[in-house]
């Protein structure tokens, strides 16, 4: 150990610090970290301990320096642990996991400290709002990586995230072609047409009473159709290319939009509608000036639900016949070839695309329904 930080002088201030200290001590007793010939060098191991002790001690430094020490200590130690296990897969001993747990606890402490910050500037507040979930997400990957490599979990069962990352980096053209086929053709087209049709159907049902009684039950029935039954039929009707997938997406997105818009059109208050009546306002004036703005929160709910439904629909539909490109096609064929890392790469891309899609819709929502109590906060 370093002279600067002998064990006796370490005084943690948080329960995570105490727990980490105990884990460190037990890890030292259960030495070494791995059951392999070269294992971790003495210098690396000492550095891991040093970084973790520094992070445990962080609360005794001035707050800003302490936060940096906490962050660097926890993540530096995790990085060294992960770097060392590479090449020693499946040989990790208890002390490896204990050190990982200690680093995780300190990262937890780091997030706790960050969450308690009340930054003065908007810019810092935004940065903080991004950093906290980023640390959270990073630790899911760190633990995933450490456990899959440390325990030597078979590649087929669960590849480590680093291998998935490498696969993504090496397959960018294939992934890009799949995204173009599935998302930019089937999903976007189906989403716009399906949501648009649901919206227009809702207006029609509102205007014409007999449609309201007839259309809603049929829409309900359509939404209950099982997608794996509908998809092959759509492939037979519209061919192997993206059009059949878009048709599946249209069927899936139509009903949520229909139901939400119908509910939204009924959302304006009696007094607001009476007001329009005293102005001798026409049906369309009342619709555009009162009922549609009042329905906007409902419509955006449907758009958000549909953004994820559309992606699921298009990917599943590609299992039932497709040209040799597309995310669903890739997943189904690479599973057959045991290229599980490629399947995970597609899953990662789909998750990313879905999040971006959802995020864009949510941003639009904030801009359009700025007036709604749920957005303006009170």
């Amino acid at each position, binding site marked *: 150990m370093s002279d600067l930080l002998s064990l006796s002088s370490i005084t943690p201030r948080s329960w995570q610090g105490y727990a980490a200290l105990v884990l460190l001590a037990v890890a030292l007793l259960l030495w070494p970290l791995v059951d392999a010939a070269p294992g971790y060098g003495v210098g690396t191991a000492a550095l891991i301990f040093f970084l973790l002790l520094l992070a445990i001690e962080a609360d005794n430094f001035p707050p800003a320096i302490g936060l940096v020490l906490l962050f660097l200590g926890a993540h530096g130690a995790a990085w060294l642990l992960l770097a060392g296990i590479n090449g020693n897969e499946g040989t990790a001993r208890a002390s490896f996991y204990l050190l990982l747990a200690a680093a995780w606890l300190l990262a937890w402490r780091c997030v706790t400290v960050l969450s308690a910050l009340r930054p003065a500037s908007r810019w810092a507040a935004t940065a903080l709002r991004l950093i906290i979930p980023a640390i959270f997400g990073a630790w899911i990957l760190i633990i995933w990586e450490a456990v899959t490599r440390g325990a030597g979990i078979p590649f087929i069962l669960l590849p480590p995230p680093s291998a998935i990352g490498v696969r993504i980096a090496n397959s960018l053209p294939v992934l890009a072609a799949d995204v173009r086929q599935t998302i930019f053709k089937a999903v976007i087209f189906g989403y716009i047409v399906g949501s648009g049709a649901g919206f227009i159907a809702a207006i029609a049902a509102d205007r014409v009473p007999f449609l309201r009684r007839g259309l809603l039950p049929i829409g309900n029935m359509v939404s209950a159709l099982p997608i794996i039954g509908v998809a092959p039929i759509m492939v037979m009707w519209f061919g192997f290319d993206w059009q059949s997938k878009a048709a599946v997406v249209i069927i899936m997105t139509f009903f949520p939009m229909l139901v939400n818009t119908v509910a939204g059109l009924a959302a304006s208050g009696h*007094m607001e509608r009476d007001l329009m009546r005293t102005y*001798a306002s026409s049906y369309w004036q009342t619709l555009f000036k009162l009922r549609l703005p009042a329905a906007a929160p409902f419509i955006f709910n449907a758009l958000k639900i549909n953004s994820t439904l559309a992606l699921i629909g298009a990917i599943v539909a590609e299992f039932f016949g497709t040209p040799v490109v597309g995310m669903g096609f890739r997943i189904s064929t690479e599973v057959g070839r045991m290229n599980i890392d490629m399947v995970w790469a597609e899953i990662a891309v789909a998750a990313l695309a879905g999040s971006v899609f959802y995020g864009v819709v949510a941003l639009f929502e904030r801009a359009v329904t700025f007036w*709604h109590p749920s957005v303006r906060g009170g």
Partner: protein
Amino acid sequence: MTGQSPAVVSASKLGLTFQTSDGPVQALSNVDLTIGKGEFVSFIGPSGCGKTTLLRVIADLEKPTSGSISVNGITPEQARQSRAYGYVFQAAALYPWRTIERNVALPLEIMGLSKTEQAARIKRTLDLVNLSGFEQKYPWQLSGGMQQRASIARALAFDADLLLMDEPFGALDEIVRDHLNEQLLELWERTNKTICFVTHSIPEAVYLSTRIIVMSPRPGRVSDVIESTLPKKRPLDIRETPEFLAIAARVRDGLRAGHSYED
């Protein structure tokens, strides 16, 4: 009422029965009423006496089931279609996605006025209710009193000769209410509009009105009509004068009489 000018509202034997799941409810029965141009008429009574329903019948928001009523000499529906009245509800009912300015512009947009005409009317009416400088605010950024003033501005922007107000200040505190009452009187004097005003506050009714219509419930009907002898110019402290208190006492007696047979 006043022989020379034609009646703005004229009702005879007016009745309205709501069909509810508990059976028919007689909200109005046998109401005879004439309101002349430039009058300030208050409707006062306990809840359930049909005062709001009567105002809604005048506004063609409810259809009477018996008797007859005319507004400006035509049916209420024709009057509504020709935008003969402005209506102020119990709550401000401003649209939260529109700024104060755009809220006041709402009826003007529906009437299809030109942008310049709209801008002129918005400016004039917001000045009238002392809301200049708040044009770009959203309703939820203003206090309850300011919101209600904005809704009055919206009804005034309409520029109809008849103003129907349904407990417009009911949800506001005493001080704001006094202030708005004063402003309303001033506005009525300046514009010479006919105002029908629903309230359940005796001082408010006596302070504002040229005529007070006392109503009583089950079935909703007119139980007394009181002509005010107060001058047109009314400072707030007129409410301390014996004349004011005498009228208030009469209104209270009228309200009590309407209740006596059941309590």
